[in-house]
């Protein structure tokens, strides 16, 4: 056992995109070569694992020999032979490709619960999950625990919904368990419509059985016979791995009738989302599973009383469910010992944007934003400086750079006008325009508004028009006040969470970056250099090679110049589309 050699290739979303499959195939090819000593070959096992976290360094490869793990980053197929020859056969790692120090620093302040098996086990092999104690909580609970005890345990853990709103999970289960009716449902919400977030995707692709185990435990707690996973069709690999995991669980008797040799019946069906952000809202999600337009309805009645097909239904986010098996394995006391007074446990974040170590992280609640950005994230990319961190996507807000010592938990972020949200964390730098970011989110919520209630349908449209005006240099002094007025009305008057939170990105940028709005409106300038309409494009004489690429790209015919001679932009003809800037390979087009 001790002299085993395990090779694990990251096949998370970024790992695959960076060529993980080719790397894995190359290991397979080289290890089956007859020149590899038989004793080495026989001890070797190689396989795919889910997201390892440090996506910006993919393809990541872990090699574990005699229990000692070494990580290689940015692995390409042509590097595999040398790694096999020098490290696996001869025993000395290829130093220049090692990422151990980088990985240690990246992991130092993280606390992995949900992701503890992600990036370690083969997500397509149920035995891999079982060998790490998977399904052990489930087995124990069904054999020896009453549903009320189970609910009590989850309540004690302090787990709150990881989808954004943070409702206590144990309480939700308790209400559903007490709800009358012999038919009940549990739904895993893996719709993850929040742009800039991929936690649920990575969890399902990296450890699908944790979701299934969490759902079985939840079903037992509330008395459900049927579960649904509502997952985005945009995540084909997650769907495929989940389908595979459900099939394996059925074969082994963990799903179906009389599961775990008890008299409990429970099975799971996958429902594919069809691309509507509003379906993350519980009642809209239910409407969608029922085959209708995914439009929310007024609450109460809440789904725990009257949900899918009118039956009591619990809807938990994928990350919430993935926490359950680990809480039940290690105990509620262990879990509630992590985090802050009101926010227990950990949270997975998708750390992206202008950050060096972009990827998937899991941190204890209460960590500071500074620790996330600088210790885990390694700071801001390419000499830029931090401007703000956006959390909570279209329902959230921006935390400015001077508030970096804020504790990341439900209450502290809410106080700052932000939310923890589902876990998107987008780092913005000095070259990001905050008005443009607000406009981006309003454009998103406006197009995703289901249209049922007026404040959301028309209010967001009017807000977007004002933001369009401002970013196009046509802003008027009263626009800021109009935005604030509309924001308040939409928040108060909208039916569901989408409308009630849609103005947040505007309100929080107005709160912390009002000067940028004012620069657009009064000075007709975009300080970050993003809003094209407010910029002037010129050609730098010393850099222009006269290649004519810009002139060809210009749709307005505003650029003239002979071949190999300096080109000139006619400012009266220029429509400020930025085509020349993008076309120039010599960075000779200047915008300011």
């Amino acid at each position, binding site marked *: 056992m001790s002299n085993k050699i395990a090779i694990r290739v990251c096949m998370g979303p970024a790992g695959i995109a960076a060529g993980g499959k080719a790397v894995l195939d190359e290991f397979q090819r080289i290890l089956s070569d007859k020149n590899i000593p038989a004793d080495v070959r026989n001890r070797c096992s190689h396989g795919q694992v889910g997201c390892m976290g440090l996506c910006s360094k993919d393809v990541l490869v872990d090699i574990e020999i005699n229990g000692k793990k070494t990580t290689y980053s940015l692995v390409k197929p042509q590097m595999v032979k040398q790694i096999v020859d020098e490290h696996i056969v001869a025993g000395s790692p290829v130093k220049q490709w090692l990422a151990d120090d980088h990985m240690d620093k990246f992991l130092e302040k993280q606390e992995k619960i949900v992701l503890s098996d992600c990036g370690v086990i083969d997500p397509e092999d149920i035995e891999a999950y079982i060998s790490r104690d998977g399904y052990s909580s489930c087995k124990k609970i069904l054999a020896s625990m009453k549903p009320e005890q189970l609910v009590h345990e989850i309540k004690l853990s302090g787990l709150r919904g990881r989808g954004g709103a943070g409702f206590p999970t144990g309480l939700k289960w308790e209400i559903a368990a007490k709800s009358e009716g012999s038919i009940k449902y549990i739904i895993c919400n893996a719709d993850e419509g929040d742009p800039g977030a*991929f936690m649920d995707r990575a969890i399902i692709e990296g450890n699908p059985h944790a979701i299934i185990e969490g759902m079985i435990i939840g079903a037992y707690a509330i008395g459900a016979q049927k579960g649904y996973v509502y997952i985005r069709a*945009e995540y084909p690999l997650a769907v495929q791995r989940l389908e595979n995991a459900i099939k394996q669980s059925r074969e082994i008797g963990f799903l179906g009738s009389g599961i775990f040799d008890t008299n409990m019946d429970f099975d799971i069906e996958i429902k594919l989302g069809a691309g509507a952000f509003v379906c993350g809202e519980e009642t809209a999600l239910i409407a969608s599973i029922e*085959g*209708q337009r995914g439009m929310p309805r007024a609450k109460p009645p809440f789904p725990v009383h009257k949900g899918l097909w009118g039956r009591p239904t619990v809807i938990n986010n994928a990350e919430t469910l993935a926490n359950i098996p680990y809480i039940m394995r290690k105990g509620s006391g262990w879990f509630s010992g992590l985090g802050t007074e009101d926010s227990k446990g950990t949270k997975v974040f998708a750390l992206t944007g202008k950050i060096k170590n972009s990827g*998937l992280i899991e941190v204890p609640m209460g960590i500071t934003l500074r620790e996330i950005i600088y210790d885990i994230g390694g700071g801001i990319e390419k000499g830029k400086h931090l401007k703000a961190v956006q959390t909570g996507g279209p329902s959230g807000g921006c935390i400015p750079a001077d508030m970096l010592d804020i504790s990341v938990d439900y209450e502290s972020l809410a106080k700052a006008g932000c939310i923890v949200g589902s876990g998107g964390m987008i780092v913005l730098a000095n070259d990001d325009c905050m008005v443009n970011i607000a406009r981006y989110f309003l454009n998103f919520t406006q197009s995703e508004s289901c249209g049922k209630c007026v404040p959301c349908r028309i209010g967001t449209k009017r807000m977007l028009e004002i933001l369009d005006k401002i970013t196009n240099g046509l802003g008027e002094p009263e626009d800021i006040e109009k935005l604030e007025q509309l924001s308040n009305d939409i928040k108060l008057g909208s039916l569901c969470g989408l409308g009630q939170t849609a103005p947040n990105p505007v309100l929080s940028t107005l709160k912390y970056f009002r000067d940028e709005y004012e620069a657009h409106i009064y000075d007709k300038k975009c300080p970050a250099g993003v809003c094209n309409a407010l910029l002037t494009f010129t050609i730098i004489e010393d850099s222009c090679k006269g290649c004519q690429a810009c002139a060809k790209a210009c749709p307005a015919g505003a650029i003239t110049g002979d071949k190999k001679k300096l080109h000139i932009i006619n400012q009266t003809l220029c429509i400020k589309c930025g085509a020349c800037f993008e076309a120039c390979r010599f960075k000779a087009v200047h915008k300011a």
Partner: protein
Amino acid sequence: MENTLKEIIDRYKTGSGSIVSILQDTQSQFGYIPEEAISHFASELNIPESRFYGVATFYSQFCLKPRGRNIVTACCGTACHVKGVDSIINAVNRRLGLSENNETTNDGEFTLEKVACLGFCSIAPVLLVNGEVFGKAEPQKIIKKIDLIAGRDNEQ
């Protein structure tokens, strides 16, 4: 077509709860949702056509017009937005002669579709060309790929 539509209906006999699934299967079969398919489902299942159109136009996944033989998918998630996917979209639009309201080329070769978020945020900006993932994408690389598919030499 009729046989295919019948097969799809047979898969979901449970009635109105399956409109989304029926349309998803139809789209994956034909690449879009043909008008005839909706009339067929409506009369076979005795559900008004308006219900099908209501669902089909609600969800962004569904497409009522034929799409191009090659699909370029641009991710418009937040990370891709701040990493400049717009400039790539503009470059692709210019290369293919497309615009905001005209997503498919006249010869039916290419469609550029924009989607909310593909979940590849850590390697933004991301585009897919016929399903192949291009992470940390640059305009030139995507155009080169399009040129390759279109069978033309890359114009310098």
